[in-house]
């Protein structure tokens, strides 16, 4: 792709901006506001007052991250009793996905009541924006994002593409399975 040069119009800086004094002071005000707010909350709670808890620093990664109950982490494909994914390969998640990072192919299922199942199911977690639309779209409740695994990294781009056996593994610890 050819790159087009274009000029950025910078805002004119007056005297106040050029000394940086006000902005440095502004930063300090924000920091100290947080400090005293949290200090105050911790103290009040110590004294038995029912105020919002103060912020706590977690020593991540030594201590594990605490995720909210509705946090969306990497995808998890649920299984049927026969070990195959519950996904019927309807492609609704692939269709709704704004990042176009789900690639599914279908095959015939031996069970006539299931009829269709996923032959391959790849999610490129390097492209995924973790919007959760795929979970909402699924008519079979086959795809979840609740395994709380947020440490997703790989040395290669292709390593970020997760496929069927890995996606069906529940709550693993640590990085992407090979």
């Amino acid at each position, binding site marked *: 792709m050819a790159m087009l040069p274009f000029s950025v119009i910078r805002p004119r800086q007056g005297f106040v901006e050029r000394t940086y004094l006000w902005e440095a002071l502004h930063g300090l005000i924000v920091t100290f506001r947080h400090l005293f707010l949290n200090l105050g909350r911790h103290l009040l709670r110590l004294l038995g007052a029912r105020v919002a808890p103060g912020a706590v620093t977690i020593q991540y990664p030594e201590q594990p991250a605490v995720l909210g109950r509705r946090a969306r982490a990497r995808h998890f494909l649920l299984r049927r009793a026969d070990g195959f994914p519950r996904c019927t390969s*309807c*492609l609704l998640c692939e269709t709704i996905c704004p990042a176009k990072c789900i*690639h599914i192919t279908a095959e*015939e299922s031996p069970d006539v009541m299931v009829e*269709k199942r996923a032959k391959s199911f790849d999610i490129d977690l390097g492209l995924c924006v973790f919007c959760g639309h795929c979970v909402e779209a699924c008519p079979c409740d086959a795809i979840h994002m609740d395994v709380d695994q947020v440490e997703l990294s790989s040395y290669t781009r292709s390593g970020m593409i997760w496929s069927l056996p890995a996606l069906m593994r529940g709550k693993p610890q640590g990085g992407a399975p090979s």
Partner: protein
Amino acid sequence: MAKTIKFTLDGRVIEAREGETVLQAATRLGLLIPHYCWHPALGNPGNCRMCNVEVEGAPKALVSCRLYPKEGMVARSAAPAPRRWQSAALEFHLVDHPLDCPVCDQSGECGLQDYYMNSIGRYRSSMRDNKWHMGKRMVLGPHIMLDQERCIMCTRCTRFVDLISKSHELGIFGRGHSQVIDLVPGRVLDNPYSGCVADVCPVGALTDRDFRFQVRVWYLDWTDSICPGCSRGCNISAHTSTRRPWQNKGLRLARVKPRYKPEVNGHWICDEGRYGFLNYDSDRLGKVMRLKPSAEELSWEAAAAEVSSALRRKPAEGLAVMASGRLSNEDWQAFQKLFLEKLNVRRFLFAPEPDQVGAEDELLRRRDKAPNLEGGKAVGFGTRIASMSWDSLAADIEAGKVWGLYAVDRDPVKVWDQRGHELLERLDLLVYQGPRKGLTGELAHYRLPATDWLEEKGHFTNFQGLVQPYRQALKPLGAAKPDWAIFEGLAARL
């Protein structure tokens, strides 16, 4: 002028032609009244009860597919009462319906889904009983499968095999609630038009076997085209899948559907045309090659320079040219200009290959399986200029009368078999131009990649003399160019 009858439908004054039903007149004007069982070519048994309308003065609901308008009649299909009747009829259709939409290939183009989402769905079932189960994924024949649970008993399929293909393979078995569509005992749905039952089926009960689970219909792009399968020139819609290359096994053409054209094919196409495209993406050429004496990939300019001088190297009497009825009218024009006007070639072969002559019947199929020999006639091939036969050309090569051959999308090795190799080895110059390599492509001195029908636009003239356009659906592969552009590139250097 034929008599017309004025009546009012949903507040709009409509002129029905004589003999037209309310539903026909409304559909002709693009007004939607829900319907399943009526099909313009298959009659109106009036069994689906979806097309209910309210007529002022009439005591009860009337089905518009069997209602002939009277002068001044006032009918309503979108008022609350008829909508309620239609939605009740739809609810009945869904009583035992499995709602397989996630796995159903019809999903996205299904009559049940369309009407349900279009204002007459109930969204709350009043059924408390379990659904009945019936036959699923039953193979009816080489191309079609049936899911009895999804069937709404509109009987369009049985009417097709009775009235159009007249092969009577399908029947209605059982009564009432347990009524099902099935094969007549001992029969297989293998008539030459069997694919059409999947088109007429308004739901996902009858579906194509080769399309099964390949790609969801909403990923397909539709392009108006002409079937290149025979000289009928049926109007088709080519459904291509290029947005998600991992789907449809990576093939770009997913399926072919008929496009209504009353004077040519009506609503139908034959199975040969519908399912005969599976090799569309195989064996394709994308590089301009010189193979002999030394193999090298060329640019179009270099190839045009080399080929045009090679064509002039010896007298034109010894040059033979083969073309096929696969050329479009545009190609035939440029072909005529290059080989007749510029090169003055005398030996032409455009007779069909043995497998280009096939079955013919009264409905659509024609014996001549090349789509556009008629277009060649318009520029003299087949009228002023006669085609050689395969045997006489072989004899001429054998006798050393022919030194050069330019084959446009023809495969003489396939026709001449073992002898073909020997014959073609004798030639000083063999140029092969076509979309697929075939057997001859290996032996050529020059191999020029041409686009196939979906990668170019053009016109075919059918056996009735009707000139019909087809549009471009796909990008050319590699360096491939339309045949006419290759001919013009050569002609410009002569």
